[in-house]
């Protein structure tokens, strides 16, 4: 899932600025699961902002709502009427949600309430870790299901650098060395020979380096009549 974390209250206040009517808009999918921007967080952020702006003698009308997914038009359209009357939408969706709002409601001013951080999973309660870099050309079949693009600090493809020690990465004791993990896993599966092959440079065109990406599925597209 997409993992995000909330911006600090001070930054949210700055982003809202002079606006009088504010809608804090939560999202019911990824950011709900990571406790950053669901209905509960939207209510808390709205209430914190009400208190903070009231203390400054600036009584704003701050409401909150949450849609199932900010990244799909059909869900966003459910708040179309509400948004019409608003000075600023503070989106607690990921960066996709913020942009979807800007695109669907060209007259609305939208600002981000979250920092979209990574694609990952909760390793344990309250701890989320990155797992995928969405490089567009998955190599997990070569590395025992552990991604060196996302999890090695240098995205190396031919084994660890010289900074791997006692199982952790040189940049931080809290970061496991991805290549140590890959080595251990392939060893446990008796597949260490997979590490001996020299892997060629990656074609990064499928990643962000090839420019903004797009998938078109002709089999799923609507015909002119259907649309």
């Amino acid at each position, binding site marked *: 899932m997409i993992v995000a974390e909330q911006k600090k209250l001070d930054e949210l206040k700055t982003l809202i600025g002079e606006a009088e009517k504010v809608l804090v808009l939560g999202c019911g999918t990824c950011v709900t699961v990571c406790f950053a921007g669901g209905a509960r967080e939207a209510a808390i952020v709205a209430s914190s902002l009400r208190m903070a702006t009231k203390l400054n003698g600036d009584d704003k009308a701050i409401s909150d709502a949450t849609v199932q997914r900010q990244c799909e038009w059909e869900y966003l359209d459910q708040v179309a009427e509400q948004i019409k009357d608003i000075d600023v939408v503070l989106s607690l969706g990921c960066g996709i949600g913020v942009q979807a709002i800007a695109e669907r409601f060209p007259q609305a001013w939208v600002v981000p309430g979250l920092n979209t951080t990574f694609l990952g999973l909760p390793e344990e309660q309250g701890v989320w870790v990155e797992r995928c870099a969405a490089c567009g050309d998955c190599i997990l079949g070569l590395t025992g299901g552990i991604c060196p693009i996302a999890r090695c*600090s*240098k*995205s*190396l*493809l*031919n*084994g*660890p*650098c*010289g*900074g*791997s*020690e*006692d*199982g952790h990465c*040189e*940049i931080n004791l809290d970061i496991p*060395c991805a*290549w*140590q993990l890959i*080595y*251990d896993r392939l060893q446990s599966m008796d597949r260490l020979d997979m*590490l*001996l092959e*020299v*892997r*060629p*440079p*990656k074609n*990064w065109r499928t990643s962000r380096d090839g420019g903004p990406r797009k998938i078109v599925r002709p089999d799923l597209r609507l015909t002119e009549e259907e649309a």
Partner: protein
Amino acid sequence: MEKQLEQVKENTNGYLAGSNLEKVLCAGHFAATGELGPPQSADGEVIRKKAALLRGFVDAVNLTDNQTAIVRMSSIGAGTILVQEGLEPIIQMTCRDRNRLAIQSDLLGAYALGMRNLLCLTGDHQTFGNHPGSKNVFDMDSVQMVQMVAEMRDKKVFQCGDAFKGQEPRFFVGAAESPFAGPVEFRPYRLAKKIRAGANFVQTQLIFDVPAFDKFMQKVRELGLHKQAFILAGVGPLKSPAMARHMKENVPGILLPDELVQRMNAAGAPWAGKKLEEMSKEEKKARMDAFKEEGIKICIETIQQLRQIEGVAGVHIMAIEWEEAIKPIVQGAGLYPRPVL
């Protein structure tokens, strides 16, 4: 060296690149390379001064590439000055700061400027350095870089496969290995990959624990790697007990036996129990000199032990910001004068 002789022989009298380092190694001499850290400034005089300390004592000199991710004069810029000074550079190139376009174009320039040795490195992560907010590159890794530059030379093609229309860059290609970094059991195989990718010589991380390195070399010999590339063991003089402790505790891939920390401590015994602020300037200097003398002595002993290990073709002496130490180390280890070929 079998592999060397089989390879391309045109333009370079049968050598791959024809560098002094390649000739010294191919002639069977025990090689000695040094290292020079370019300044954090545009002052070429710094390079010239350091070059004077190294001239005649080493076969070639590594020029670091923004080591520890701190911006310094480029290795190729500093290498150009070294060529002017009559010393032979080994250009270091990391994967951190350049993509495959930049690496190749810089190497074309480096070759045109007279550089013939290249050491391909992954590079320290930029969060260590003085621009931690910078974007890193890592378009390719060090194994892939080795392969790319070897193929530029041997197949006369760019990484994309396009053929050179003019002179191809012909480098004596080096790789690094850190024998004690993790996973330790994989390190000889990682070295094998680099050699398979085309590395002609190898320089290792600093070795202080010779018996542990001997074990690594045993595996290297089992894999036959010492017959496919020249392996230069990394050594360096300790400057103080504090440096010894720092290396032991903080630098990944360095094994430093307690005995060496104790020897460094013992060198300061005459001043033991004295606080730094109680010591006169002369005493401080005398103590520092005693530490340095012991550090050089340990380094010389280490070289002599490494020389006994089958498959060790030379030493790479890293005395960064202490280039004065190279002369006594090379002389003390019986490696002076250097062969003139």
